[in-house]
């Protein structure tokens, strides 16, 4: 928990991501122009999730890279690697939930909101935020160790995160159409199991990454 507080102190990153969200959405809004009210729900949905994908990659890339060299050694003496990865995943999930909700608010403000089943859409966002953070936290650690910057982060994470993204898009499409909730139980169960699996794998693997 202390980790979470520590990360919170670096609000510069937080603000820059907020600005990133704002400007991306505004770019989308301007690109669709006056025709934005004719946006089909499918396009609305897909554009939203692609924005979220890039936002999360940008946000997570900072989760290791922005720390000074000495601090890793400090953590190393202070806490076990399992605690570090758990804290980072929890923090990143919270961060992503906050980002997703703000993004959704701003997004529906400028581009309208065709969602019929809002609680279910929030469930999709929740699953997406935890899923993105459990996948990307370890990958950002890998990219940080490789010292190759953000492009490697994108290369490594896209193929891993794509199945999750596709399932999220389908789930939120169901909620936009206001389908019966039982239709999407399949997706929810799969998403949750994939999330848990990836989080567990990162929990097991992180000590090896940390040691080097």
């Amino acid at each position, binding site marked *: 928990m202390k980790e979470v507080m520590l990360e919170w102190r670096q609000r510069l990153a937080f603000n820059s991501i907020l600005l990133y969200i704002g400007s991306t959405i505004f770019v989308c809004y301007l690109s669709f122009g006056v025709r934005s009210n004719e946006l089909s729900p499918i396009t609305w949905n897909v554009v939203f999730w692609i924005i979220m994908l890039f936002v999360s990659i940008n946000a997570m890339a900072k989760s290791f890279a922005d720390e000074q060299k000495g601090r890793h050694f400090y953590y190393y003496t202070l806490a076990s690697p399992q605690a570090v990865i758990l804290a980072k995943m929890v923090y990143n999930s919270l961060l992503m939930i906050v980002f997703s909700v703000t993004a959704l608010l701003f997004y529906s403000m400028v581009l309208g909101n065709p969602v019929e089943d809002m609680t279910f859409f929030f469930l999709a966002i929740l699953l997406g935020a935890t899923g993105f953070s459990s*996948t990307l936290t*370890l*990958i950002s650690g*890998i990219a940080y*160790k*490789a*010292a*190759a910057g953000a492009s*490697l982060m994108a*290369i*490594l994470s*896209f*193929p*891993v*995160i*794509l*199945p999750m993204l*596709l*399932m999220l898009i*389908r789930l939120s499409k169901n909620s936009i159409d206001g389908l019966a909730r039982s239709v999407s139980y*399949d*997706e929810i169960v*799969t998403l949750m199991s*994939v999330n848990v*699996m*990836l989080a567990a*794998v*990162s929990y097991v*693997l992180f000590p*090896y*990454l940390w040691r*080097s």
Partner: protein
Amino acid sequence: MFYFLTFGEVKIQIFVEFYSPQTDILNMKLTWWKLLAILILLYVIIGGFMFDVPKLNILNESIRNLYFHVPMWFGMIISLLISVIFSVIYLAKGNAKSDIQAAEYANTGIVFGVLGLLTGMVWAQYTWGSYWSGDPKQNASAIGLLIYLAYFVLRGSFTDDQQRARISAIYNIFSFPALIALLFILPRLTDSLHPGNGGNPGFNAYDLDSRMRLLFYPSILGFTLLGVWISSLRVRIRLVRNRIYGIE
């Protein structure tokens, strides 16, 4: 193909045999399973084109692709699984050999994957009408290949050997569950044009007389053995090269 791969290395191998007292990694013995692979593949290639197949609408003779296309995917999954196992061994023990093995099995897996895509695309041109029809399984396997290409990009971005071995092993293990989700869970959730999905009858419905199975199962075994053989050759080449340059 493997002769082609080793041809350039023959000089190095002779060189090492001459100067190095340790010849354990150089034994060129044709063990029983390699013979088995050769025999099975001969049988599959001859039988695959010559034997009778059930005559069916649309599929016609293209049903023979079952002997070549599907085993590619088995070969890929098995190679990648072996690669992941070696990555786990590397993280547990930290010996350089398992890292090389993991990388080479992943390499072979990619070759199988590309061949699987190509054989599938040729088949799809004649049965579905186009090389690429955005079928979930096609997309999923293309993304799966991207994972392993990213794995090699990651390997390329390190200068330190140990660092590279450890971190690429981590990525390899981490991405495998995602690959499994991609190949086995996701296509099940949507309709696919593939036989056995989305209301299309599976191949099992066709070959009830089990003539095809007589070729199909050996074919899987044969191509898998071939994959293991190619990878073990490449691992040996790398080990020999390391020994020459004194890296090991």
